[in-house]
């Protein structure tokens, strides 16, 4: 097993590529010259491939990297940009500080994979500032792969600004291995006619602790936003979801949607919606469901021959997909 300080970049690259597969990623994309990618282990850049219209500047900082990603106005990247971050040793810190600037009418999608397969005491800090230009679209899908020990602290924090008519779509997924501690803190500010969809999916086990705070600031007229969270908890895992929407722009629309499934009697879940209407023409809604899996869903699958346990697994798999 590799240790911090070893300079075997190739082996680190291979190990990260291998865990990438476990999050549903395609490791061949990291070697494809037509696919933009950035591979980081600790504070070492193992791979960097940019494309015309996309600039990625990366500099090492203690315990991580600072990255600046720029997509030029009007550029539409055909393939998703792969971002692969990880730490292979049992202990350590990975800090990613990033800024994203998506030019007007540009269109780009990012697939971020964060791998901590051996973590026993690892802290992953992520701070991002994202600016999506007028009429631009940015998708950011982040999938985590953690080992079985639950020794990871994941602390992502992002502030996003979406200009007029822009779109920001993001999904955060931590369903492989143990969560450890997750404290996610995302805040999006939407200009006129801008759109944001923020989805988080987390599977907590053992004594995992999950806190998700996502806020929509619907500042522009006719801006729209959705915050959706799907959390499954088992053993003694605990989760708290706080979904916030502030309707400032006239005719803005926001919706908070949270489902938390508890497996067993010791897991705990809370959902706290916070809706603030500043302009009377804004409309905000929320829905939350916390509890065990719907009996009708289970019995429908059981009436097709699945055992109760298989039915539970099928429903959970669908929910976290």
């Amino acid at each position, binding site marked *: 097993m590799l240790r911090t300080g070893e300079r075997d970049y190739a082996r680190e690259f291979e190990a990260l590529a291998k865990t990438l597969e476990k999050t549903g990623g395609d490791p061949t994309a990291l070697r494809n010259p037509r696919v933009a990618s950035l591979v980081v282990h600790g504070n070492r850049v193992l791979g960097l491939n940019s494309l015309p219209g996309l600039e990625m500047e990366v500099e090492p900082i203690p315990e991580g990297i600072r990255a600046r990603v720029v997509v030029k106005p009007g550029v539409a990247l055909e393939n998703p940009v792969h971002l692969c971050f990880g730490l292979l040793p049992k202990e350590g810190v990975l800090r990613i500080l990033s800024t994203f600037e998506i030019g007007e009418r540009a269109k780009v999608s990012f697939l971020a994979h964060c791998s901590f397969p051996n973590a026993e005491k690892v802290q992953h800090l992520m701070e991002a500032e994202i600016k999506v230009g007028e009429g631009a679209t940015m998708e950011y899908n982040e999938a985590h792969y953690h080992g079985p020990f639950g020794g990871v602290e994941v602390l992502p924090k992002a502030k996003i600004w979406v200009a007029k008519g822009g779109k920001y779509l993001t999904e955060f997924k931590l369903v492989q291995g143990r969560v450890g501690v997750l404290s996610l803190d995302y805040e999006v500010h939407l200009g006129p006619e801008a759109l944001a969809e923020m989805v988080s999916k987390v599977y907590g086990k053992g004594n995992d602790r999950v806190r998700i705070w996502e806020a929509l600031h619907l500042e522009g007229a006719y801006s729209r936003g959705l915050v959706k969270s*799907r959390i499954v908890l088992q053993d003694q895992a605990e989760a708290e979801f706080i979904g916030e929407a502030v309707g400032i722009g006239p005719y803005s629309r926001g919706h908070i949607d949270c*489902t938390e499934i508890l497996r067993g009697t010791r897991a705990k879940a809370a959902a706290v919606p916070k809706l603030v209407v500043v302009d009377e023409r804004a409309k905000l809604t929320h829905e939350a469901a916390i509890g065990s899996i*719907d*009996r*009708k*869903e289970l*019995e*429908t*699958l*059981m*009436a*097709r*021959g*699945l*055992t*109760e346990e298989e039915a539970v697994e*099928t*429903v959970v*798999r*669908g*929910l*976290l*997909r």
Partner: protein
Amino acid sequence: MQKPGFSGNIEALMATSSGRALLVVENLFVEREGKDILQGVDLSVEEGEIHAILGANGTGKSTLAYAIMGLSGYKPKAGRIIFSGEDITEKSVTERAKLGITLAWQQPASFEGLTVREYLEISRRAGRGCPSIEECLALVGLQPKSYLERTLNDRLSGGERKRVELAAVLAMRPRLAILDEPDSGIDVLSLDDIMEVIRRMNREGTTVLLITHREEFARAAHRASHLCGGRILKTGECEEVVRFYKNFCKGCTHVNEPEYERLEAKSDA
């Protein structure tokens, strides 16, 4: 006046059938929230038939369907359910499904993230299995290309979800399909198509217990039983049962005290 229906013992139930009984329900009582919904149901369904259960809203039709499938909360407080000669009253939903029984819900469940393809594959693996899930979907009027990769969530309309439910039954090819009001939520123009799907299901070897309150649907069955006030009041040829339903129970307000019994009480007096 002679009380219609069966006499309440298993031999009599078997004897009333001209063919081989696949399902026999004997003197079944089911209580829900302190109220007796089924009050001694006797029913015999022959192998290979489409058997309609006709009754007004609130008479216990769905409760009967759920009790036969063994759903939680519908455990009988008395009576027996015999399937293919075996007492299944204490068996779980999964065990009943593995014996070849399935249920299509009146309002099918939604599943986030589960695709139509996956759902139909689960069904196909459970039973005797259809050759092609695409064909099952096409038979219920849904284009496989457009629907197989869609998820079974709320974005499907009620009618589409009902059609997928029927396709799942086709994919499973069960020995007994309990169809709880497959006609509800389906546009009138498509009712004949849905009935044809049920007939095809039946031709391919599935015995159908068809729950409905629509006379024209019941008429398409081989035999029918009329349920009122938690009891089967009459079983026989469809036309005869429909006539009985219209004469005695249409407009009956006493869903747990059948109009028939009120008339009977009057005549006794």
